[in-house]
């Protein structure tokens, strides 16, 4: 049973909060402070639900997704974008199909956990395994 979650966000308090919430729900959390770290974790074999912040310095959320797809690291993962209202979406062209959901910041613990549990269920469902 896959219970792995990755938070990709440059703000350490956001990462820490998500960590606390996940810990309370017995989820296994991987924390990445940048797109580069996220790619490293994926290269290292991570598969699970990825919570991806959009606005990050240097390599933003969309750039990271492009890299994930280009490097063939997408299969076995579900990506949920963490957005603020009105954040730029001009770069999302052609990448929407890799994004399963959007969660607007700020979000409460229940909202976050509901979402994670839902997508973990999808990941673990036999129909989605191949």
């Amino acid at each position, binding site marked *: 049973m896959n219970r792995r979650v990755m938070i990709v966000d440059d703000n350490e*308090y956001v990462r*820490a909060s998500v960590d606390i919430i996940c810990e309370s729900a017995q989820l296994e959390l991987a924390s990445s402070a940048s797109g580069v770290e996220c790619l490293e974790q994926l290269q290292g074999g991570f598969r699970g639900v990825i919570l991806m912040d959009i606005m990050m310095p240097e390599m933003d959320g969309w750039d990271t997704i492009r890299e994930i797809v280009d490097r063939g690291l997408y299969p076995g993962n579900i990506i949920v974008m963490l957005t603020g209202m009105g954040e730029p979406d001009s770069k999302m062209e052609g990448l929407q199909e890799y994004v399963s959901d959007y969660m607007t910041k700020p979000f409460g613990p229940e909202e976050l956990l509901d979402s994670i549990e839902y997508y973990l269920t999808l990941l673990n469902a036999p129909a989605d395994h191949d």
Partner: protein
Amino acid sequence: MKFPNARDKISLPLLISALTVAVVMMVGNHLMLDQIHEEAVRQANRQQENSMMAFWELMNRRGRNFHIDNGRMILGDYYVLNGANELTDKIFCITGSRATIFMGDTRVATNVLKEDGTRALGTKLAGAAYDAIFKEGVRYRGEADILGAPYFTAYDPIRDLNGKVVGALFVGVKQSEYLARYDRINVKIGIINGALAAVFVLCAVILGLNRKRAENEIKRQLNFQQQLMDTIPSPIFSKDAQGRYNLCNKAFQGYVGLSREQLMGHSVYDLWEPELAQKYHDMDQEIMESPGIQVYESQVGHADGSVRDVIFHKAAVRDDSGAAQGLVGVILDITERKAVEQESRRLEAQKHHSRMIESLMMQLNHDLNTPLTPLFALIPMIRAKVSDPGVERMLEICQQCVNQIQGLAGKAFDLVRISSSRPRLIPVSLCAAAESALGEISSSLAERGVICCNAISPDLQVLGSADQLTLLFKNLLSNAVRYAAQKGKVIISAELKGAEVEVSVQDDGIGLDHEQLTQVFDEFYKADTARHDLNTQGLGLAICRRIVANHEGRLWAASPGAGYGTTMFFTLKQVGHESPAIVEDEPLQENYLESYQI
């Protein structure tokens, strides 16, 4: 061109010249004819002299002495001269002159004829010839009347042996016969003269007409040029080599507010302020000295007293040797263009400012949301872990404050976003926009137990931006739900009114009084004057107002009074009633829709 009319206008000097030439010619001819006449008379007299000599020669062959015997004049011994017409006729044959032999003063042999055509025998000599021969005993030469006709004549006395004048010999030609040839020449020359004079006058007339035609053509061309210049809306002028105005069009007169008479012949120093005049003069001098067209920006005092920004286009007018004879100039008023450019720069700056604010707000929104995320995530978890009611109350306050900050950030961002540019208006379903908004506020509806009824027809389409209309409904519905009665009712409906769709959101809540109705659309206004409601930001209706303005509609509130509910109305354009040229991303002007109808 009508001939008689034109003839009146033929140049008088030209005609006088032609007539003078004709008169001079005629006088010349007359003098020449006089000479010819004189010569003819001289020749006639000479001829008489010769004829007389021939006559004497003829006589002398028949004898030398004359005497009168028995009433007859005898030459020599026996030759009777009375009736000796053969002698006179011979003289006529030889010389062409008439001849007569007088016995005493009586014609005894002659071929001078009387009026009836018979020989004038027996007639008497009279006049000056008679006096010369018989009174003075000398010969006579000259003109004389013979039987009433003028003759060139020669008379010689005939003397007897004693030297007494006993008769006379006469030769002569009728002046009319002798001068006939001269008269013919005279007539011919007269005709030629007349013809030449006529030709001169004709030439003068033709020349005059041509000159008149050329003058008319020049006049027509000048007229055309002036008309052309007057039709051109830009002021045009020209100056002579001394810098005096010598031509201008109506636009120029109107521009500087001076008449043609006030301008013509005056220099810039006569007409403009010394400072401007000096500037114009310097530039004029420069163009006079250099080839090509001079284009420069300057200023001109306008008729209305203002100083206008203009562009001068000037060029020197040169003669064949290249010396400047003056200059021509055109003025292009760029005052308005400059104002437009300035306005355009201002709008560009405003647009840039709007984009900057939008960008700043976006960044601020993100930067606010990021630290709010841990608070949002962690406060509920802490609250779940505490049992002390005091601590729980404190955490609840924190939670509310965080909610408020989050709401404020979101609404402020909405306001900037919808204010910075006008959306592209396309046909959208009004009902779907309302449904979408209801979906977003479903939790609030449920929380307050309010029932919302969407009575908009699913088929109704309006011109709008789906996102903004959803946001509009969301804000109106949030207010309605907030102020509706507990377990109250909110009704959304739409009605076609001409080219517009009038939409209403009606609640049965606290209502608004007259003063509140005029203030509800202000930014940061709250119906709750004490601003106790921490869950609102006071930006909702301000956002609504901007969205409706973006849709070129009207927004107003109506309420029967405090406690009787409120109805918010707004209008949108129906599909098929597009206003022309809706530009995307056009910066919005303030005062777009400031009137609050009640």
